[in-house]
């Protein structure tokens, strides 16, 4: 059976620069949770950007297949509508745009792609209420402009709330745990655990074992210097705590 996501020998760079990803291979099946760890500057956020087709990046070799089809030519917005979701390491502010309004536009864009009718305001609010109970999110955040003036932790929570609303097939969480206090980390992790689903794959980028105590991954990978240099199961992360990355980088 083909996996939900198959990345093969992926090389990519920021247009005009040198390769940042230098031959990534990764396969993620539906229902699985993968953790990606690795030193700063290794290329983890770059990988998530390339998977989401952020404009300005060039794939110079290799392939990405999603749901059994090569998606090289699929633009960012179409990938999003087809179920690829990225929780940003640094969510951007969009002044003047109401968070709820934005989310509704997004939900409806994705529903349209699936051939479902738009949600009207009251149906949408019902869904919001339901998903809000999954996560401990203040409805005050929903009345404000997208990410404007949100604290670091509030931004991360808002990302996971969006994930809950959009129900993606593949969710890539880029350092969602960074900047969260202890209670928020627990709340967000609980939320993500509730979103685990046999039809959904989750790829989490993190620097901390602590997150993996809450959200137990099926696989742990180390990305260093643009390549996946080692992989293992969840116990592998504990080993890394002790040994660090240096020996893996050297070996690779």
């Amino acid at each position, binding site marked *: 059976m083909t996996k939900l996501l198959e990345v093969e020998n992926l090389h990519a760079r920021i247009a005009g620069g040198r390769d940042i990803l230098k031959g990534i291979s990764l396969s993620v099946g539906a229902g699985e949770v993968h953790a990606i760890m690795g030193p700063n500057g290794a290329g983890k956020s770059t990988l998530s950007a390339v998977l*989401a087709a*952020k*404009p*300005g990046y060039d794939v110079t070799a290799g392939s990405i297949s999603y749901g059994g089809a090569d998606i090289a030519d699929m*633009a*960012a*917005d179409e990938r*999003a*509508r087809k179920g690829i*979701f*990225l929780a*940003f390491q640094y*969510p*951007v502010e*969009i*002044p*003047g*745009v109401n968070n709820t309004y*934005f989310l509704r*536009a*997004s939900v409806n*864009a*994705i529903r349209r*792609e699936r051939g479902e009718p738009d949600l009207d305001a009251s149906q949408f609010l019902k869904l919001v209420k339901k998903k809000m109970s999954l996560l401990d999110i203040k409805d005050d955040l929903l009345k404000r*402009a*997208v990410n404007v003036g949100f604290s670091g932790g509030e931004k991360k929570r808002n990302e996971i709330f*969006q994930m809950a609303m*959009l129900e993606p097939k593949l969710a890539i969480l880029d350092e969602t745990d960074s900047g969260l206090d202890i209670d928020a980390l627990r709340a967000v992790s609980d939320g993500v655990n509730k979103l685990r689903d046999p039809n959904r794959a989750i790829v989490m980028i993190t620097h901390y074992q602590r997150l993996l105590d809450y959200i137990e991954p099926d696989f742990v990978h180390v990305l260093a210097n643009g390549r996946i240099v080692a992989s293992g199961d969840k116990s592998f992360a504990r080993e890394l705590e002790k040994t660090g990355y240096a020996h893996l980088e050297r070996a690779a």
Partner: protein
Amino acid sequence: MSAHLETIGEIASGSGDRYKYGFVTDIESDTAPPGLSEDTVRFISAKKQEPKWLLEWRLKAYRRWQNMKQPDWGKLNIAPIDYQGATYYSAPKTAEGPKSLDEVDPEILKVYEKLGIPLGERAALAGVAVDAVFDSVSVATTFRSTLAAQGIIFCSFGEAVREHPELVQKYLGTVVPRGDNFFSTLNSAVFSDGSFAYIPPGVRCPMELSTYFRINQAKSGQFERTLLIADEGAYVSYLEGCTAPRRDENQLHAAVVELVALAGAEIKYSTVQNWYPGDANGAGGIYNFVTKRGICRGDGSKISWTQVETGSAITWKYPSCILEGDNSVGEFYSVAVTANHQQADTGTKMIHLGRNSKSTIISKGISAGHGQNTYRGAVKIMPGADGARNYTQCDSLLIGKTCGAHAIPYIDTRSPSARVEHEATASTISDEQLFYCLQRGLTPEESVSIIVNGFCKEVLKELPMEFAVEAQKLLVVSLEGSVG
């Protein structure tokens, strides 16, 4: 959603050309021969059966105008205007004299319906009375009797001259003097029609008053004159909308608007300007050279201008407030879009005379394509305006690399206790913002539209609800094709 908006929505979302109001209507018109002379002025005045004092007023303006020069201080590139080649009066043949709705030419009613402004009172926007100006004349005014019951006068300017000469004579030219500037003086000489409203003391006008301007005739200018008076303690909210057919030559629109707010009165004046902007290469389009000014004559009076300027080849206007009364308030909220080859030089003047007078200026300029967008604003605090305050915020958004945005604030403070604050920002739509929207499934067009509407939020929220929705759609349509 009202019928009006649905129609506009359909027009706005239709495919093809981005200017959806560019159709021409074939209607028999009564048109003055091209050219401008004292005879033209007499012709117009006679057509409108005006009293002698008004003819004299026009002639004085005309004589003064002959010795004036078209100004060139705007940051604008204006092709020479052939004042002798234009037509200064054009009226649908069937529109002579005041009309009740069932007498209006069905062809004209159809035009307004197509524009999304049904004039039949049953079909009309609930709570909005409309004065429809077609080329040089007002063709219909709705809800007159409802308004009259409260003593509110809302009619065409021509009718006001006939029916309420004492009010017109008392206020005409008191805010924008007859010979104020080149274009307003030309207007004083040849103005054709426009709207007039008077709200009696203590009356809160129960519905939005609105004028819808339509230029149809080729080679004709439009020179309407609007005069609104809110007597002591009165309140009125007024809106104007404008469209014109798609034509290859530039057409001049030189209107004058005068607002008078007496003690404790409030006037809220909103404009959604969507004159034909010219084609993608900059051919054709309206020259929108308009003089708008209000005076807060009494204590505690307030005038608020809101404008959304998406159309016209060139927009050159500064809706201003003279804050004469103590504790009077002036506001200016503006969104100006210049896409393709459009140019705008717009802003406001706040002249503080009264003690503790207060003004707020929020200007949002959006430039795309080869558009050039200049904010020009003056804040003057005169001696004696103790405790006066102004806050100005002036933001520009640039889309693409070939457009321009400029801010030219003039500040002149002659009272030591005055406080003037000015903030300005210039930004582009960032790649990060765009990607964030795309990653949430929005198309590139939807993404830009959401970011642009967010940028304009503070201004759009000042518009009456129904018109805010229309304005949002217009913003999107006028920027179509500018991104990507």
